[in-house]
């Protein structure tokens, strides 16, 4: 059964609502002042351990790659390009994907379309650069593990849902 329309009315303003409204607003403010529901991530000292399914940076496992070029063809931002390199066990140079993080939009199409799971997401998404050239990776760079810079400074945490406080921060162990 589809939805139905329900007519509603906004509350009227009277002198009484003016008084109760003011008092109510201040009381709610006080409630949060006395018992704050803080769930701030203290970022460099703590960092969120992302799920394995998170669509973060991408890593190439060269052994599995068959050079089908599906990833480069489906890349919406033309961030993934093919380069021809000589691979062990192949006679002719094989096309292998490389990535340009200047463009990558982390849509995960390439990972999803890869027929051999040669591409995989890393649960990392807080890397910054001061030089744009560092973001254009070659085949070797594409196979390297990108790790979150917060790892050296902080501890991993996870957020879990809670009916009283929305999200609650709990410690997590990496691995």
């Amino acid at each position, binding site marked *: 059964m589809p939805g139905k329309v329900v007519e509603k009315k906004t509350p009227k303003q009277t002198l009484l609502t003016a008084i109760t409204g003011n008092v109510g*607003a201040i009381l709610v*403010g006080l409630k*949060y002042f006395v018992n*704050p529901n*803080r769930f*701030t991530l203290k970022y460099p000292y703590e960092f969120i351990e992302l799920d394995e399914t998170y669509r973060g940076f991408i890593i190439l496992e060269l052994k599995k790659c068959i050079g089908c070029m599906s990833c480069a063809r489906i890349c919406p931002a033309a961030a993934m390009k093919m380069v021809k390199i000589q691979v062990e066990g192949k006679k002719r140079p094989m096309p292998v994907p490389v990535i340009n993080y200047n463009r990558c939009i982390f849509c995960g199409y390439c990972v999803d379309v890869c027929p051999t799971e040669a591409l995989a997401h890393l649960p990392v998404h807080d890397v910054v650069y001061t030089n744009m050239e560092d973001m254009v990776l070659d085949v070797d760079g594409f196979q390297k593990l990108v790790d979150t810079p917060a790892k050296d400074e902080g501890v991993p945490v996870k957020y879990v849902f809670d009916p009283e406080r929305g999200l609650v921060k709990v410690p997590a162990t990496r691995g």
Partner: protein
Amino acid sequence: MTGIIDFIIKLIIWPPLFQLVLLPGLVTALVVVIFIIWFERKTAARVQMRIGPYHISPRLGGFLQLIADLTRYAFQEIIVPRTVDRAVFIGAPLTALVLSVVPVVAMPMTDIPRYFPIPMDYSLIISMGLTTLSPIFIVAAAWASNNKFALIGGMREAFVITAYELIFIISGLSAGLAVLSYNIVDIVEAQAPFYKWILFTNPIAALAMYASILMSTSGFPFEIPEAENEIVAGAFTEYSGLMYGVNMGSAYIKRFVYTLLFSLLFLGGWAPYTPQPGFIAGYLIPAVIVVVKATIVMATISFLRAVYGRLRIDQALDGAWRIFIPIALAGLLLALLEAYMGVYA
């Protein structure tokens, strides 16, 4: 040599200068303002489920944040656009800053005549009169900026100040009327027992004065003259660097001075304490008590920013003329009644 040091010490503790510069003048005001802005940001953060300034000094909960902001402002480029009226653009905020702190020279912080800044019998009227000076220069600064947003902000400042200064003065006078004296010392002394604070005997006037402080000193979100989402900091749109710091500072100092007056008139001043002879017991301690009370009042104002939104200018003026001026007049009547019945006789 010792003569010079003696002279300097004497000059420093010479009441008018001491009060204007050190306590509760410029220096104390700055310390209180730094505390209050930090408190404001932390309170808002607390209500808003977050932490607020923190990383600059994790152990102090980010207390140094304001120092960093001020230092950064102090060393930033000061842009004076080509289209402004240069002299007024630079002069007006500085004048406003000086004038905003001037009213404290008329506020005695103790009842020992030796430490009165300027002994006089009409200190209430003089101090309230002096508070009305600085807004003029904010309007001047707005005019000099030659910017449409600044102009609108200046106009709003003029409107709001006219309306709410009136409330401020009426409710201030009603405090004096109850005691039948316009000398702040008399008013404070009359409130010596806790239950005789005018806040309790005349809450109507206190409410009116509190509201007028809220509105006329432009604290977020009651900063109608500098509404950020409407007219981009209003009068101060064009100010940068230290000049903007001066503007911000003078707004907060003004609020501090207003709340000083509020705590003298309604919260019993140095009330639980009776000044004793001697510089420390007779002057410093009572002054600190007044400053602490004023800070608490400012803190409540800071808390309200987390609860309220901004009013429209016409609604604010409507509230002033239609609600708060009648309330202030009712407070005046009540004060008259109290004076007649001799509550503070």
